[in-house]
């Protein structure tokens, strides 16, 4: 058994070493793949706050991923066409600045998470799963029918948005930016899980009645977790859109929700680095198995079945044993 801390350090080292190798070996596509893994990891760290810590099985996190993506798409679309977003009640213009776009993405996805959370948390268990899934579909169909922003075809952004002091068109600089954000998000998730709020949330997942007796409202704790979780996934959505310079309703699709969940399961539910390991393994599988066979989803499905049925705790659980907070 390896200590989980060493495995985490090794994972981070891989995220630094692989791109360095890619630069020296002149393999820019590897950097793009790694950026994809980092962005997926951020989205999954977000979901893991709701899922691992709060026990909320949300099958609708694509909503926030998509909202982040469309926040970027719409702002950049207006900026590249020099058209205002709206002129009433006051003039709002598009922007090509990443920090502003991230801010909008986070605000919009938190608001959506608040509304969806308030409605969905009236229920629990299977109802919660189905309702979050249904809200995901609602946004998906809305995006398809919203012809002003590309409808089914989505929006293309010609030039990647800018970040002060960096040349984001250079793959390695954009990668570094995303990796920096992932580290910040991981730090935040780690601090959160050890904070009084995180401990209360952990307890609310396991024995809600006791938390209530202690004078805390478990539903409110879960709602806050859901909003924080949605905000982080929204940030990942904005980065994903910038990586591809393209947004489409696919970002809202229920398969996207399922995939974000798969990252966590492959790595390990409730583990700090579970989503990170899972996203890296998923992108590697997608790349290698995808090159071997057009039908690589069959193998992904089989792997997932094996992990769910026999390997409780994901890859980290298999390598490090069961010592994490997940019950």
């Amino acid at each position: 058994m390896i200590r989980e801390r060493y495995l985490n350090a090794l994972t981070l080292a891989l995220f630094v070493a692989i791109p360095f190798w890619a630069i020296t070996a002149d393999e820019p596509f590897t950097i793009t793949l790694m950026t994809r893994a980092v962005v997926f990891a951020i989205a999954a760290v977000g979901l893991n706050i709701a899922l691992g810590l709060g026990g909320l099985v949300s099958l609708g996190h694509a909503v926030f991923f998509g909202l982040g993506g469309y926040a970027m798409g719409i702002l950049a679309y207006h900026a590249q066409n020099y058209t205002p977003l709206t002129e009433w009640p006051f003039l709002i213009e598009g922007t090509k600045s990443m920090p502003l776009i991230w801010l909008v993405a986070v605000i919009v996805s938190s608001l959506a998470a608040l509304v969806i959370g308030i409605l969905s948390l009236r229920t629990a268990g299977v109802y919660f799963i189905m309702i979050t899934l249904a809200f995901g579909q609602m946004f998906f169909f809305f995006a398809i029918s919203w012809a002003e922003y590309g409808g089914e075809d989505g929006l293309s952004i010609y030039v990647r948005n800018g970040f002060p002091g960096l040349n984001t068109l250079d793959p390695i600089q954009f990668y570094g930016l995303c990796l920096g954000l992932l580290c910040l998000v991981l730090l935040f998730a780690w601090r959160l899980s050890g904070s009084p709020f995180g401990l209360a949330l952990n307890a609310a997942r396991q024995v809600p009645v006791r938390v209530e007796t202690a004078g805390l409202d478990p539903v409110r704790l879960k709602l806050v977790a859901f909003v924080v979780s949605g905000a982080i996934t929204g940030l990942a959505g904005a980065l994903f859109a910038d990586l591809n310079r393209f947004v489409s309703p696919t970002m809202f699709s229920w398969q996207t929700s399922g995939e974000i969940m798969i990252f966590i399961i492959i790595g390990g539910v409730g583990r700090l680095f579970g989503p990170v390991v899972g996203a890296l393994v998923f992108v590697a599988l997608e790349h290698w198995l995808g090159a071997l066979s057009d039908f690589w989803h069959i193998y992904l499905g089989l792997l997932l079945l094996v992990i769910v049925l026999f390997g409780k705790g994901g890859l980290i659980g298999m390598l490090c044993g069961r010592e994490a907070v997940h019950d």
Partner: protein
Amino acid sequence: MSLILLIEQVLNGLQFGIMLFLMAAGLTLIFGVMGLINLAHGSLYMIGAFCAAAVAAATGSFLLGLVAALAGAAIAGALVELLVIRRLYTKDHLDQVLATFALILIFSEGTRWIFGSFPLFLDVPDFLSGPVTLPGGIEYPLYRLALIAVGLAVALGLWLLISRTRLGVQIRAGENDREMIAALGIDIARLYTIVFALGAALAGLAGALVGAIQSVQVGMGEPVLILAFVVIVIGGIGSIKGALVGAILVGLTDTLGGIFLPEILKLFLDPSTATSVGSSLASMAIYILMAAVLILRPAGLFGARA
């Protein structure tokens, strides 16, 4: 906007709702008896449609296709229950979601492997093709009327099965107290396999029937699956009656919303805005309906437990 159009659309909505009921009934039965959330139910719908299309193309008989759909989906359901689902009853919902999501990946890609990416077509049989004239001079496709009739017959049969037969007694007992009926000497594992295969057969039937008016392709099951989830959330999980009422509500809301919302908005807005806002709103209408039901009754219209 005439009365004839209104009646036509109501019939369309009814037909859509009845097909949703066939899906939702299986889902709600499986959840009620086994406590299992089955995302792969849409795959069984797809399997039914593919079996029907393949057999109908080989034999030229639509009815043989329907039999193949029922049998194919039921066999697939029983196999999946024996191999995978059986291990999930004691696991939490997250594991159930993931394992059945994995099954979707396997079924969808497997079907694509066997049949290719191009859609198959299933023709409406001759004896059900063409329109009929309803009282009041309304011309309506006979096949869609037949779908409504078949669906209602299945609903009646299901009700009789559950309220009047020995198997139905066991199913109802299984919903209430599975340990007790196991102690009374009922083979609970066999009962679960039967219920799962029954739900699968209903999904397969729906897939085959709808396959004749839409194309039969990989991925056809999931949109219907999610609508069926909306249906059982509205109706209340575990309730067949709730599934029927919820399905018809969803079918009518979706169909009528798509036609009438743009028309209603045209009274207030200019036509092009009204059309785009109306169609956006219409695509969200059933989810708004679901949110409204949740606010008023979190356990659904006929749900006993949350």
